[in-house]
């Protein structure tokens, strides 16, 4: 019995390789398995090397899996480019209309498209392949049948034929596999679950979290990989006094957010690096005029247009200092899909509490992943709203040290929200002592955000592993294996990157901190060093997430 099945569908954009992996995952999830998908594709609509991967397991999953049990490939290039990731003893299923593999001892050729056409169900070729994979890996065929039945019974005329056709296609694949006699270890039986589970994507978790946090206005400009959050909001943030709009550029998005935040609403946008780079001046205005808003940056490969569909963690430095002048924008970066949900709530709470901009750093690999998770416990949701002025301070919005009541237009306390240095009522003045007072005020508010939670294990160890964002998954897996292997390394993680929980910072003093991160500069490690922590980065900048094995060996190398 094997605990894991990792399948990759590889081919070209438009050949449904991503869909194949996700269909397989959904089916397995419904069969009770834990699943996690990952896909990578070029920045174009048709063509180009693409693949989708599904990991199916009887145990909770942290990563899409380093090595493949089954590689399904649509063409020669896909075979050549992905073979290296096939584990020893792994099997290949390939499109025999496209190319041939001489040695068929571990490979199975299927003319899936032709078979599907001939069966009068051209769209079913992926299902044929899934059938073959299921057979090879000993996945319960019944489970797949019941999935197909559910999935295509949508109460439309002709559902029956479609279901029948697809089940037939499934069996066509099963037979093809059966003929070969090839067989992997059977997959373990699925676990039993106490709590209800949901199948959710990262961007959905971020978006629904934002709705849970009370977001009222969402304005964005399309950009991969952040567009999905915008379109999700278009479809789901639809209440009477809710507003979702497509801006004409990211400069319009961020300045419109400033307007909405100023007008008293919880407001948010989603973008990627190029958009964030255009928001620097606007974020400075939000910082200066003290306007609550949240920018979700779904990181992709940079700089410039960079690698629009690949994953990277290289926007951290700019997120904290997106514009000129003295500012330090709060940054929150979720490490998993569950955390993506809670991170959105936290980001909105922070922005409302300290009355300023907050940046939520997501990543392509988190936003696009689909995974089964426990239904979040909504009773734990706590939302905050800004302190609203009842006129107590008159128009002196910027009076006092730190946060003061926020006058909402239409209500009392008319003032000028000003991006130029200003006095208490927001009138422009550049007198030295006023610039000092107001600068101190803006930074003092950050002290209100020292409530970030963090994980800390084996805190006695001299060396601590401290990943951030989506690197949490592979790092955690590597850490678990290393600890099992008797390596003594501590574990810390927080999604609250700026300001860092002061308790965490203290606990790191005097330790050697290893920071795995997906960028060249070692951006988070750099930041930690500037805070006096002895941190060194473990970097990777391939546009792909870390492999657990690579991380493990690198950590061992550093410890040696």
């Amino acid at each position: 019995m094997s605990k894991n099945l990792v399948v990759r569908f590889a081919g070209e954009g438009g050949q449904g390789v991503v869909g194949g992996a996700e269909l397989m995952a959904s089916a397995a999830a419904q069969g009770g398995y834990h699943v996690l998908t990952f896909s990578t594709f070029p920045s174009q609509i048709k063509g180009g090397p693409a693949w989708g991967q599904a990991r199916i397991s009887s145990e909770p999953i942290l990563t899409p899996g380093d090595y493949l049990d089954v590689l399904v490939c649509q063409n020669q290039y896909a075979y050549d480019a992905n073979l290296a990731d096939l584990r020893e003893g792994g099997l290949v299923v390939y499109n025999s209309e496209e190319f041939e593999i001489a040695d068929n001892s571990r490979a199975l050729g299927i003319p899936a498209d032709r078979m599907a056409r001939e069966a009068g169900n051209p769209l079913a070729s992926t299902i044929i392949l899934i059938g073959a994979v299921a057979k090879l890996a000993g996945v319960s065929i019944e489970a797949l049948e019941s999935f197909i039945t559910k999935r295509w019974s949508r109460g439309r005329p002709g559902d029956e034929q479609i279901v029948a056709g697809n089940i037939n296609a499934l069996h066509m694949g099963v037979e093809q596999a059966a003929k070969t006699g090839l067989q992997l270890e059977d997959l373990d039986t699925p676990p039993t679950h106490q709590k209800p589970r949901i199948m959710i994507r990262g961007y959905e978790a971020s978006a629904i979290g934002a709705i849970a946090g009370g977001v009222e206005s969402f304005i964005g400009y399309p950009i991969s990989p952040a567009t999905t959050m915008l379109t999700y909001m278009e479809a789901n943030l639809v209440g009477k006094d809710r507003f979702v709009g497509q801006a004409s550029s990211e400069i319009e998005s961020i300045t419109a957010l400033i307007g909405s935040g100023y007008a008293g609403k919880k407001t948010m946008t989603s973008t990627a690096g190029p958009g964030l780079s255009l928001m620097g001046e606007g974020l400075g205005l939000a910082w200066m005029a003290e306007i609550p808003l949240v920018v979700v940056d779904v990181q992709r490969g940079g700089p410039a247009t960079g690698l629009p569909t690949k994953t990277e963690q290289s926007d951290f430095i700019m997120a904290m200092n997106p514009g000129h002048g003295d500012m330090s924008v709060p940054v929150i970066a979720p490490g998993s899909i569950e955390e993506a949900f809670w991170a959105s709530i936290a980001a909105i709470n922070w922005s409302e509490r300290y009355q300023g901009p907050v940046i939520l750093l997501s990543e392509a690999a988190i936003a696009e992943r689909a995974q089964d998770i426990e239904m979040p416990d909504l009773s734990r949701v706590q939302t905050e709203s800004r302190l609203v002025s009842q006129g107590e301070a008159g128009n002196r919005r910027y009076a006092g040290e730190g946060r003061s009541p926020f006058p909402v237009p239409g209500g009392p306390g008319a003032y000028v929200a000003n991006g130029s240095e200003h006095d208490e009522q927001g009138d422009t003045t550049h007198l030295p002592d006023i610039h000092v007072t107001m600068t101190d005020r803006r930074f003092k508010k950050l002290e209100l955000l020292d409530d970030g939670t963090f994980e800390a294990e084996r805190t006695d160890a001299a060396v601590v592993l401290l990943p951030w964002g989506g690197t949490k998954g592979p790092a955690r897996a590597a850490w678990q294996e290393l600890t099992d292997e008797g390596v003594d390394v501590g574990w810390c993680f927080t999604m609250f990157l700026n300001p860092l929980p002061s308790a965490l910072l203290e606990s790191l003093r005097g330790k050697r901190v290893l920071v795995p991160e997906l960028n060249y500069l070692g951006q988070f490690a750099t930041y930690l060093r500037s805070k006096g922590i002895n941190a060194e980065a473990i970097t990777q900048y391939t546009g792909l997430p870390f492999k657990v094995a690579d991380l493990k060996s690198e950590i061992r190398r550093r410890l040696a």
Partner: protein
Amino acid sequence: MAKRNPLYDFKWCPGCGDFGVKVALEQALARRMAERGESIENTVIVAGIGCSGNMVHMMEGPQPFGIHGIHGRALPIAYGIKSARPDLNVVVVAGDGDFLSIGAEHIGPQARRNLDITAVVMDNGIYGLTKGQASPTTELSVVTSTTRFGKLDEKMNPFLFYLGVGVPYLVSQLSSRVKELAGDIKTAMEYPGFSIVHVQSPCTTYNDTYSLLKGDEKKGIEPLAYPIGDGHDPEDIVAAAALVRDRRIPIGQIYRRAGESVAAHQRLAEAKARANIEQSTVEELLTAMTIA
């Protein structure tokens, strides 16, 4: 907020056209409040960066809300305010450089949305606050600190520009005609859609165009500005284009889109009503993803 804030020390130069615009805006707001029994806090003044933008601090009497943001972004800020709070009266005040150079990109989108706000543009054909560089509306071959050989770029025709990007309501006025300007601003605020009041507001320090605009009989200067005759049909966009095509400046209502004007927020409300869609709760959104 000049009167209420002795510390605040911004001054316009003597004779600056913006003084007239200030008084007109104060009057327009005062009348609106009186007529509607609406409180002044229901109005938000969104200011661009420039001498003109300091309007938001210079206004006296009952104080509206204000926001003085960054250069060129008054319109998108107004978009954010109005889309969040359709109940507010939102007025943009900006200069020709702010509104028509770095901020020009934002005019078309608001016009297409028919965002229900009023923009008061103070056009002095110069960058005042930065001490006199050419702006899009500086005349061809005028010498400024950035146009040593005389301006080589053609003068932008703001009216043609507004018509081209689809601005549905367009009035042209002079800062010196305070009474008329106050009326124009008030009516523009009442228009349910995107309205622009484009004001010739001379810069006495860097580009004094008073005599050019009003003309000067002694010097034999024909007035550049002239009142639009009754012959003009403001609902005919082609006629409007013909009216503004030459370099003279027609004063009055240049264009007003025919038919009823449906503001952006109305459209959205109606669309939602049509789709009779409801906001799902977080619980519902998550439950929909349950693995059966």
